[in-house]
């Protein structure tokens, strides 16, 4: 008896930038092409990291690649993103990151001093995050075939005790907590590209969120349901994914969502929504109501968590939808992005 070959549901004729932007198009690619071919029998919603059992030990494993222009920007560089991004994916899946491996794809002609700077940055970020970089690989491609360098990191970690995170465990009544202001990273990159002639005192928020996750785990483990770090696609995308995967409604009080003035100003000028902008050092946590106060206090007391906020709650309806409410009672649906956020004039 031969099994039917898996069919793909991805109907786009070519790959476009939108497919890497973290929004709906990315989702379509993953669910419509990668999933049916690579993990056809999986019933679990896709998470930041995969949890596997090896000889009875539960470990988390994840990978991420980093493509950013410019390589260096206020607050960080591609090397730091590469370490912190994977560390954070492991942390929000409920694991302590232990070991990273790294792959470089380098463009011929890249000045050595740039590579050296990034490798130093990676070493420093790894030490700060308490992880070991234990190996990797390097490939060099012709000049013009890579934006100077692409970095991929893969990491494994051990599951933190007492945590049982899943979208399925999220229930109406649960509270939505955010670790800090959103939009810093994406706007910093946009400004650093120099195409828009905007200047601001702003830097990327790239950092390891492990200390904050550990603080949460210590104080609120039994009530911690689910976490995610909203990178490309922004907070709106992560929460929409949750609303879908958990079959719930996410209700946000827009005025409670921390956004720096400069981010707000840049977004207003460009017609962007901070909720759709990438972050590299924040995460959202869903916490059972009985633990919410303690969880928020724990975040605020932890180093770097002083701007954490309670931004909303989980409700039953409307299902698979994220709603935002203004302080004067108007509500709007906060949708996932289609592709990259584009500045607008209208």
């Amino acid at each position, binding site marked *: 008896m031969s099994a039917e070959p898996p069919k793909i549901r991805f109907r786009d004729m070519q790959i476009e930038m939108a497919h890497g932007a973290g929004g709906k198009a990315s989702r379509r690619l993953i669910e419509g092409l990668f999933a049916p071919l690579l993990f056809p029998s999986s019933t679990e919603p896709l998470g930041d990291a995969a949890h596997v059992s090896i000889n009875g030990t539960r470990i988390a494993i994840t990978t991420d690649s980093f493509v950013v222009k410019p390589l260096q920007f206020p607050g960080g560089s591609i090397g730091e993103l590469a370490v912190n991004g994977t560390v954070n994916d492991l942390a929000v899946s409920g694991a302590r990151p232990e070991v990273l491996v790294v792959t470089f794809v380098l463009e011929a002609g890249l000045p050595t001093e740039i590579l050296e700077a990034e490798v130093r940055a990676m070493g420093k970020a790894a030490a700060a995050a308490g992880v070991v970089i234990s190996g990797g690989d390097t490939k060099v491609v012709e000049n013009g075939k890579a934006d100077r360098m692409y970095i991929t990191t893969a990491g494994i970690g051990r599951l933190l005790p007492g945590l049982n995170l899943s979208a399925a465990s999220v229930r109406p009544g649960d509270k939505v907590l955010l670790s800090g202001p959103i939009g810093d990273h994406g706007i910093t990159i946009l400004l650093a590209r120099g195409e828009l*002639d905007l*200047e601001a005192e702003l830097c990327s928020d790239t950092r390891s969120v492990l200390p904050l996750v550990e603080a949460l785990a210590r104080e609120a483990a039994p009530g911690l349901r689910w976490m995610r770090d909203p990178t490309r696609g922004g907070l709106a995308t992560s929460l929409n994914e949750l609303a879908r995967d958990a079959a719930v409604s996410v209700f946000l009080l827009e005025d409670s969502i921390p956004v720096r003035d*400069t981010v707000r100003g840049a977004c207003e000028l460009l017609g962007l929504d901070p909720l759709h902008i990438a972050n590299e050092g924040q995460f959202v946590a869903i916490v059972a109501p009985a633990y919410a106060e303690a969880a928020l206090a724990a975040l605020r007391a932890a180093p770097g968590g002083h701007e954490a906020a309670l931004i909303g709650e989980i409700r039953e309806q409307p299902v698979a939808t994220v709603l935002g409410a203004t302080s004067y009672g108007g509500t709007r649906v906060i949708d996932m992005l289609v592709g990259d956020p584009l500045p607008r004039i209208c």
Partner: protein
Amino acid sequence: MCLAIPAKIVEFSAEEQTRALVEVAGVRRHIDTGLLADESLRTGDWVLVHVGFAMSKISEEQALDQIRTLTMLGEQEAVLEEVTGYGLEESIAAPDP
């Protein structure tokens, strides 16, 4: 049609007469003031910016006036209700809403 943002003029360009630096919530951008050549713009003035051009000078006075008018909404109603309570509504002309 059309995203236009209030921004404060912080500096005029020394080289170009119609170029100014504006600021919105700490974000700065160079804009073209050519469409407001007839106005005498000064640093500290607020202008409405659309696609990198200043479209109009914002009147703080008008803005405050508007907020004041709206804040008073309902206050005239309260006065009227109180007066009505005394049974005086026939002898007192209702204030304009």
